[in-house]
């Protein structure tokens, strides 16, 4: 009992509040990555696990470029290019070599681990704001939030434009109905490769910003990224649909992915504030994603369960018999 009291009295709400801006900044940066996951998971209907690797690739390329004296914008662009290539490889493994989607992503991801180590030369490279002129950094969190939001607006705008074009429409139709797409003359393999490339390019951009924000690039920084991305996408869509219902348009959907990322990191902030061991955060993430994935399914199932339907039918029959009598 004393332990519990001690535990609660040791929790200082101010600590949580002081950490909140940092959580928001990280949530925005990872929300950009989640937009990449949105492209594959929601639009292309492709569970792409490349992202764990390409996120770290973004960080690795950025760090090495900065260390070799490149300006930060060039480092970020190079990161995007590396991500595009990573996605291209997963796409070719899947379309040209017939490897199933999840496996193609895993293969690229595992290969990227070695590639990332080779790029960096070691497992961890510091890129401190003291030595480099960075786009954003945890040393100035309000600035990082503003920059993150500017990136979000630009990326969401570009995605809104692109997926409204003729070419972008082919990606959406390929994800939703490949048979129809082929019948309408769409090369679905090309659509898949383009979508995977764009997605991983965006993920690598997020990795680049993340490395700058935290002040180092680490070969393990992308571990579990796909699950965090899914968490943001799913939390965002569940909450967005609850608020906007049928008025959810594409821009709102995309905005809620970023919002999902922020919420995820705030939830993480709460978990750490409650002094749960950091070793358990991945477990916590997995549980959250599982819950958000399961809730819509269970809701639908309970509506159409055999038991419930049979009960309702029996009731109706009884009523009918009574009214006939």
């Amino acid at each position, binding site marked *: 009992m004393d332990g519990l009291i001690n535990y609660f009295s040791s929790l200082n709400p101010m600590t949580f509040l002081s950490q909140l801006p940092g959580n928001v900044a990280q949530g925005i940066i990872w929300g950009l990555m989640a937009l990449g996951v949105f492209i594959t998971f929601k639009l292309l209907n492709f569970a792409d696990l490349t992202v764990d690797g390409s996120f770290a690739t973004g960080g690795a390329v950025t760090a090495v470029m900065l260390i070799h004296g490149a300006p930060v914008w060039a480092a970020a662009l190079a990161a995007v290019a590396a991500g595009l290539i990573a996605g291209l490889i997963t796409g070719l493994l899947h379309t040209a070599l017939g490897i199933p989607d999840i496996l193609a992503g895993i293969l690229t991801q595992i290969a990227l681990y070695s590639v990332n180590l080779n790029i960096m030369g070691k497992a961890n490279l510091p890129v401190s704001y003291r030595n480099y002129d960075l786009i954003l950094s945890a040393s100035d969190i309000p600035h990082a939030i503003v920059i993150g939001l500017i990136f979000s607006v630009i990326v969401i705008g570009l995605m809104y434009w*692109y997926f*409204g*074009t*003729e*070419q*972008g*429409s*082919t990606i*959406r*139709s390929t994800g*939703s*109905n490949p*048979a*129809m*797409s*082929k*019948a*309408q*003359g*769409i*090369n*679905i393999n090309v659509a898949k490769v383009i979508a995977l490339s764009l997605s991983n390019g965006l993920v690598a951009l997020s990795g680049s910003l993340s490395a700058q924000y935290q002040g180092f690039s680490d070969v393990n920084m992308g571990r579990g990224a796909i699950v965090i991305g899914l968490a943001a996408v799913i939390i965002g869509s569940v909450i967005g649909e609850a608020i906007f219902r049928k008025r959810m348009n594409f821009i709102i959907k995309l905005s809620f992915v970023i919002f999902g990322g922020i919420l995820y990191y705030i939830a993480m902030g709460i978990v750490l504030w409650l002094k749960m061991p950091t070793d358990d955060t991945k477990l916590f993430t997995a549980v959250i994603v599982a819950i958000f994935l399961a809730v819509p399914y269970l809701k639908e199932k309970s509506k159409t369960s055999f038991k419930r339907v049979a009960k309702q039918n029996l009731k109706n029959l009884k009523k009918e018999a009574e009214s006939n009598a």
Partner: protein
Amino acid sequence: MLEIIDVHKTFNAGTVNEKKALNGVNLKLNDGDFCTVIGGNGAGKSTTLNAIAGVWPVDSGAIMIDGEDISALPEHKRAPYLGRVFQDPMTGTVADMEIIENLAIAARRGQRRGLGWGVKKYERELYRDMLKQFELGLEDRMSSKVGLLSGGQRQALTLLMATIKKPKLLLLDEHTAALDPKTAAKVLELSDKIIEENNLTALMVTHNMKDAITHGNRLIMMSDGKIVLDISGEEKKKLTVEKLLHKFEEASGSTIDNDRMLLGE
């Protein structure tokens, strides 16, 4: 127009499930032919349409459209020549996209798809007028997701998508089989109208003998992966179900064992 020369296709060759689906199909359609295709289960009707559409490569033979062999082309490269409506109303349209977006995708069949808007402003008016003729009320729901439509509405929409860009050949694969009789009749009527107004060449697979007789100017019957009957012109006009059955027995040396076909639903 369409010429199919000695096409063979065997599925699962060399296994216990080996199935000779097409066994030397020969067919020549003239411009403007509306040809109905009838036959029992496994006779090769849908397989013939899939061979034309390029769902898989054929084992041997050639498929020509306007004198050009298309049998080496993958499915999406044959699409510019073809309009297709499938048996399952879910297959022909994208449920997650709006009616107008589906139409816009179909209108670009065979064109390069670049970075211009997927739906241009002028298209809205254009498609509204087209949908109005269908009298299904779809013209007022152009921004609705296709997933909200009924099977019949989706099939009608697929029909419009298949013909919005005039195809050289329209392939209708039992496209009314999954609909209730009233809706099926409406979609068939619509098909007739579109084919006639646009002077299209069409192949229509059906399991309904009456439909096969009353629609189109030509009728072919398939059995065991071959075309066993080919009736056109005056003979087709005078055709009845009884005469057709008799002819089938003569041609194939067996009786029809398919109740679904005989009953004509």
